[in-house]
């Protein structure tokens, strides 16, 4: 917090501005999403990768049975590996990614900024001021409905500046959306 002040003037440090109070860093947002979000992501990945595995299996047997001559030998010889590769990747995704995501996904709504951190392999920190919010949507897919979760979408005039928090408990999401909508209405300035 205090180091924010001497960072006030920007862009002068180049890489190693290690002097003084140390480089400024964003602290993680305060709130985690609901633990049930792990289940949500796991089901999503399972469905997606299950489909991919099925397709791979189909392609492998089809190519193996057809016995085309005009296929290059190196391809027919190796197409049998395809389902295994896809299956292994899918297994890894289903087991690792949801937990990893849960550790990364966080959100916080301060007096005038919506601050989120999302992603897993590649992470994104997003700061959207309430005064620039145009619409706030809540959404529930069928998996989310089963688990009692909701996704809240905060839209500004720019796609880059629009954030999405998934995996919130329904009541939290509803309350948050209403609250944000009211405050955005009050604070709105028209910079779009």
């Amino acid at each position, binding site marked *: 917090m205090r180091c924010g002040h001497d960072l006030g003037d920007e862009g002068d440090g180049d890489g190693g501005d290690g002097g003084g109070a140390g480089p400024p860093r964003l602290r993680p947002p305060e709130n985690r999403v609901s633990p049930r979000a792990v289940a949500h992501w796991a089901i999503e990945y399972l469905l997606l990768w299950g489909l991919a595995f099925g397709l791979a299996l189909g392609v492998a047997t089809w190519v193996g049975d057809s016995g085309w001559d005009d296929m290059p030998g190196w391809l027919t010889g190796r197409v049998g590996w395809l389902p295994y590769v896809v299956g292994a990747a899918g297994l890894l995704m289903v087991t690792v990614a949801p937990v990893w995501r849960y550790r990364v996904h966080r959100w916080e709504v301060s007096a005038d900024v919506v601050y989120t951190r999302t992603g897993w392999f590649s992470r994104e920190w997003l700061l959207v001021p309430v005064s620039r919010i145009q619409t706030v*949507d809540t959404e529930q897919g069928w998996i989310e409905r089963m688990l009692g979760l909701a996704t809240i979408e905060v839209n500004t005039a720019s796609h880059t500046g629009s954030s999405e928090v998934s995996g919130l408990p329904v009541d939290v999401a509803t309350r948050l959306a209403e609250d944000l909508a009211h405050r955005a209405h009050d604070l709105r300035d028209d910079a779009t």
Partner: protein
Amino acid sequence: MNLRDGDAVPDPAPKPVPDSAPEPALEPAPEPVPESAPESVREPGLVPASVSEHAGSPAGSPAGSPVGVTASNGHGDGAVPGGPSDVGHAQRLHPFTFVVGAVRELIALIAAGATGLLVGGMSTAFHFTLVGLAFGLAFHVADWMTFTYVLYGDRIELRRALIGRSVKSIPRDRIRGVDISASPPHRILGLAAVDIDAGADGGEGTLNAVSRHEADRLRRVLLARDAPAPPRRVLARMRRRWYVYAPLSGAYLLTPFALAGSLLGTLYNLGDDLGLITRERVEGVGHDLVGLPTALVVALAILVLIAMPVMSVIVFTLFNWDFTVHERDGSLVAERGLLTRRSVSLERRRLRGVELADNPFERAAGVTRLGALITGLGDAAHRGRLLPAAPRPVAEALAARVVGTVPGPLTRHPPAARGRRVARAVALPLGLAALALVAGQPWVAAGFAAFAGPAVLLGLDRYRQLGHVTDGERLSVRSGSLRRRQVVVEHGAVVGWRIRRTLFQRRLGLATLFAAVGAGEGGYSAADMSEADAVSLAAGITPAWVTPFLEPPPDR
């Protein structure tokens, strides 16, 4: 939950405060500038143009009409310049509209009729052509008779009653631009076409042909400009010798091929329709081409090579002849074109920044292209153009007059970013080479691998071009090599920040900062900044949003 549409509200403060100061969106109109004041007084100043513009025209206070002043809340402003009698009075397009509309069909039909006459005398085909011609003309006359437009205080309505009735109503406070263009037939008849653009939610409307005078009046009225002779100041104008820069940009180099292609296609279709093209003839031509001596082919190739730049200059000149940017009240107006003269008005209060783009050839020649970043502008790549090709100092001078001085010099990004740029550049050729090797095609692999050399150079240049800077009012970021872009945005135009760090970036201590802007592409990035720089740049521009979330290290 839809809060409110961002564009529905005419924004009374053209220079938004970066901080989130609560500000009533609908403000009563500020004291009107005395309407009788001489134009020179009302002319917007050079840099803070917004101030006088602000006072002059919140949604169109008309000359000498007290109604317009009291009620100018963006919807209810009562009257229209040119007299209240114009309000609600249905108007037709110019009587010559059908001539303009029918000219293209006329040419096609006359050509078809003439060939019909040549081939088959007064055959049935010819009669059909005549009938078609008559129908075409009748349609255009009927269209003209049934199409009217009505100007109201708060909207313009376009009514069409030819087949069924349709009324298109465009709210005047949503109108973002009024483009006037004149094709050669328009020009001969002293007419112009008016395109009304009201963004995504207002739709578009076209008046095919009105008199030039009426076109100017409509633009003035619809963009809420008052006074019959608007003050006009030229900000920039193309010089003759700049047209020679055309071959530097790749797009215009290819135009000869496009032209030749469409010409050949037309000829072929025409010939085919008339039965002139038979299989034997096509084969004959093919044999002739193969039989040509090598010297002739080489000569032809050289001719094409010479023709390419020449043609590109000609085409460029046709499109951009006498490219002029001038300022009129609250708008920037860009005019261009030799045969079809096109003018695009860009509202200043919707301007968020500018973009300077160039490619390596243009860089070598010191040439750049300037474009405007406008909120909610459709077809921005063409319509937002402020200079199609100009020496860099000229483009920067114009940028300075439009948004303010281009900040500089740019801060370079840390050396760790260099490796990432190079790795990303060589990834494609090396990956393809590896695939080819796996597939047992060593020669193909070698071919791909050979591309890795130039790719390294490209990556190095991409790193060299990375940069960011802010001068306290404007943020500028630059990236790209084959198409390098430097974007300058006002701090107030930033609507959010996004910082992205992949696993690789985290290991190198790098981060990509996106400034979200509600104009242009919606966001502009400074790739691979040092993490601390990214955060402090954002914190410096909008301290109120970022500093509450800062903490002393360590983060994770």
